[in-house]
């Protein structure tokens, strides 16, 4: 019983870290890439220049750091939990992205998009009611 509680606790804790660092990383990358701008053409030298300018941005690096933290938590939780559980359960991050995009970057989020995000949340709740490990332990 205690072992099962511990497993739940570490699963939810890592999911919490994922939905925190993932959206923050996406937002920082979005903010950083907006300052880099679109390349005039998609030729190899232009693409190289585009990525060099992107990697010169501290905001892009902060975003990469956040996404790396997210990736570490994601990788650890996948050592015991189902991929088809963890992936949709982490979708609560989409709500956080929309909120941050709206309130931090000042992006417009329409009513229909808010409804879509609410439905995503209901879907995540349903997935959250399934067992997080359905395969044999290795």
């Amino acid at each position, binding site marked *: 019983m205690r072992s099962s509680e511990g497993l739940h606790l570490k699963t939810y804790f890592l999911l919490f870290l994922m939905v925190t660092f993932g959206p923050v990383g996406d937002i920082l990358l979005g903010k950083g890439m907006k300052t880099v701008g679109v390349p005039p053409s998609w030729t190899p030298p232009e693409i190289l220049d585009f990525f060099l300018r992107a990697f010169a941005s501290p905001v892009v690096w902060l975003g990469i750091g956040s996404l790396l933290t997210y990736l570490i938590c994601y990788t650890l939780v996948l*050592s015991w939990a189902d991929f*088809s559980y963890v992936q949709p359960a982490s979708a609560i991050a989409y709500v956080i992205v929309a909120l941050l995009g709206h309130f931090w970057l000042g*992006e417009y989020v329409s009513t*229909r998009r808010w409804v879509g995000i609410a*439905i995503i949340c209901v879907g995540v709740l349903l997935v959250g009611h399934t067992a997080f490990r359905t395969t044999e332990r*290795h």
Partner: protein
Amino acid sequence: MSLESALLALIVLGGTAGELCITRAMKVVGEVHDFRPLALVRVFGRAMRVPWMWFGLALMGIGFFAMLAMLSLENVSFVVPMTALTFAAGAYGGSLFLGERVTPLRWAGILLVCLGVVLVVQGKG
């Protein structure tokens, strides 16, 4: 196919296949019990010796660079929700490639997530 569609395909397919490969590698490594920094370094050291991890990282790298390019073209609150298409691909892949039991309740949740994605896409602008 527009540039945005091609980038979206790379984000969804590259990202999902990469994550499935990484899951396979972590299942080979086994459940992590010790979360102290040194123990985690050892876990990732073991994971790096599993070829699936390298396949996964390469595929996720492709998805990441496609995402970076897409974010320079579109708003983040539009781009990121679109990547929710990976949930359907992920559940299907998890069932086929990893032998996970995707119950009707889990499928229902995933389909709702996909429906939410359609509304999010339609709500653009």
